[in-house]
């Protein structure tokens, strides 16, 4: 890999041992990928504060510097961790104090994370604490090279915003924050951003639920490839595309998609393919749509629902407003919990608009920072949960060993109020 003079200086220790370790990792990583060089970035979204048993052990051994060295820089050396060189934010992590006592998630983990926040804020990390940094002030511009992790944020940044990022990990973002560099490979290169597959929706793709189901099918079909999708869509909004992208990155590993006429790098179908021949379309018809619905509901058996989870990826203010509206004057069924996950900044807006109060009065909770899948914890005794998120319906049964129902927001709120799942394919 070709290295610039400033990269060589960093590697050789001119900016301290942590920056040298970061550059060493980026070189190993870039060479393993087959990258020709690194590229400058001024926007890093990673994870440092999320507790885990392995991290807790490292903190006991050598504090947060040790944890960052091993987990975020893949180094066993004793390093002095300086301030981040470029703007860096913390994505979603574990539950915060607002979830204290609601689950088996330990107080120790909540306190460990609060301690990490202090350490990393002092080093310039913005604690956005969300899987949707683009909802709370981190909005890269088109063409900007960024280094993000969180698959649902990566696919949103590439596809909807036209920023350029690979699906980075905890170590590559840890190294990028200290160096302002990331391998110039994959999605950073224009030729690698053009569509490879064409999917045509013949079945309806109009509602939030439809977008999630379509995304789940697209990911299943193309896996890591780059789909262009066409159909009679109307105008999707932020929440629709947040759901769609998250689903494509759940059943598959989609990091960029194009919707001709809607997403920025596809003014036309031909442009989506970079002028190459447009392949024959793979069809998403009523049978495929039903397959997705049945797959996402295959983990459901009992219709007695204990727990409703909304806000995956983290809810927009508009979604919170809809949930509050549906819960207005209603009361949750005894023994059924409803949680809405959102970034803390949007929680503040929801407080101000009275949405939090409406949700809380009904017996629900508006929580921040995390989700049951990240924190591996749901309300005690949960056996059956329901969600409007294809991603959460996919992951939570595996992570928590519980049953799952997938439906619309209205069906989820209905289940919260009645304690019964009455969702239907529509």
């Amino acid at each position: 890999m070709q290295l610039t003079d400033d990269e060589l200086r960093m590697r050789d220790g001119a900016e301290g041992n942590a920056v040298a370790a970061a550059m060493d990792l980026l070189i190993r990583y870039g060479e393993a990928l087959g990258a020709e060089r690194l590229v400058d970035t001024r926007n890093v979204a990673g994870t440092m504060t999320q507790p885990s048993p392995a991290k807790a052990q490292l903190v006991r051994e050598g504090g947060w510097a040790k944890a960052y060295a091993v987990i975020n820089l893949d180094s066993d050396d004793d390093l002095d961790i300086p301030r981040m060189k470029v703007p860096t934010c913390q994505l979603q992590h574990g539950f915060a104090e607002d979830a204290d006592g609601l689950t088996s998630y330990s107080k120790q983990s909540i306190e460990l994370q609060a301690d990490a926040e202090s350490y990393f804020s002092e080093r310039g990390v913005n604690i956005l604490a969300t899987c949707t940094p683009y909802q709370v002030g981190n909005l890269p511009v088109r063409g900007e090279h960024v280094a993000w992790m969180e698959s649902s944020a990566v696919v949103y940044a590439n596809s909807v915003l036209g920023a350029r990022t690979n699906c980075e990990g905890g170590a590559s973002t840890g190294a990028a924050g200290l160096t302002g560099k990331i391998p110039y490979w994959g999605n950073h290169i224009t030729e690698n951003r053009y569509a490879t597959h064409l999917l045509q929706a013949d079945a309806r793709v109009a509602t939030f639920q439809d977008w999630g189901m379509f995304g789940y099918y697209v990911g299943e079909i193309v896996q890591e490839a780059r789909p262009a999708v066409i159909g009679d869509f109307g105008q999707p909004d932020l929440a629709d595309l947040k759901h769609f992208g998250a689903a494509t990155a759940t059943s598959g590993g989609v990091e960029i998609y194009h919707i001709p006429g809607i997403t920025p790098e596809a003014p036309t179908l031909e442009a989506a393919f970079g002028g190459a021949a447009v392949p024959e379309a793979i069809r998403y018809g009523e049978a495929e749509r039903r397959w997705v619905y049945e797959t996402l509901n295959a983990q459901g058996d009992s219709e007695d629902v204990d727990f409703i989870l909304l806000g995956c990826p983290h809810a927009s203010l508009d979604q919170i407003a809809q949930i509050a509206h549906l819960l207005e004057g209603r009361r949750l069924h005894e023994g059924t919990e409803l949680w809405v996950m959102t970034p803390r900044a949007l929680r503040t807006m929801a407080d101000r608009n009275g949405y939090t109060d409406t949700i809380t009065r009904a017996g629900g909770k508006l929580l921040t920072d995390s989700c049951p899948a990240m924190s591996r914890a749901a309300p005690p005794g949960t056996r059956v949960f329901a969600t409007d998120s294809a991603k959460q319906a996919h992951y939570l049964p595996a992570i928590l060993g519980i049953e799952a129902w997938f439906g619309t927001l209205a069906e989820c709120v209905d289940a919260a109020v009645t304690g019964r799942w009455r969702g239907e394919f529509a």
Partner: protein
Amino acid sequence: MTEPVLELRGRGIVGGVVEAEALVTRDPISGFGGIDVATGTVIEPRHELFGVCFTGKVLVFPGAKGSSGWSGFFQSTRLMGTAPAAMVFNVITTKAVLGAIVTRIPTVVEASPDPLDAVRTGDLLRVDGDSGVVTVLRRAAQP
């Protein structure tokens, strides 16, 4: 020492040499929501290795899918002593490549002939991450 059955030649991306039994799957693997790091087991319900432990095995798989937590989850298997012995995969993604690096196990990518066709679960392999060669030392007993 019997003659090697077969050699697969690729590119070593994490150095070191290890001999261990192969665990082969045609399904891409998820980190987050796909494996349990405490037990080194695949936990994704629809996965063909559901419930199977990969600790100490040469994990032969197409590549990574799902969350960007992939590398962190496999790194945790290293820290918790449940890691595979080596990795062999052919679909290059940032997730799988970074995951192999931070798991610190010999890893060969882009090997030919295709490891998914040439290797069966239970085969004894030598994975040489320095030279990029995967050697089938002994075939698994036929079921």
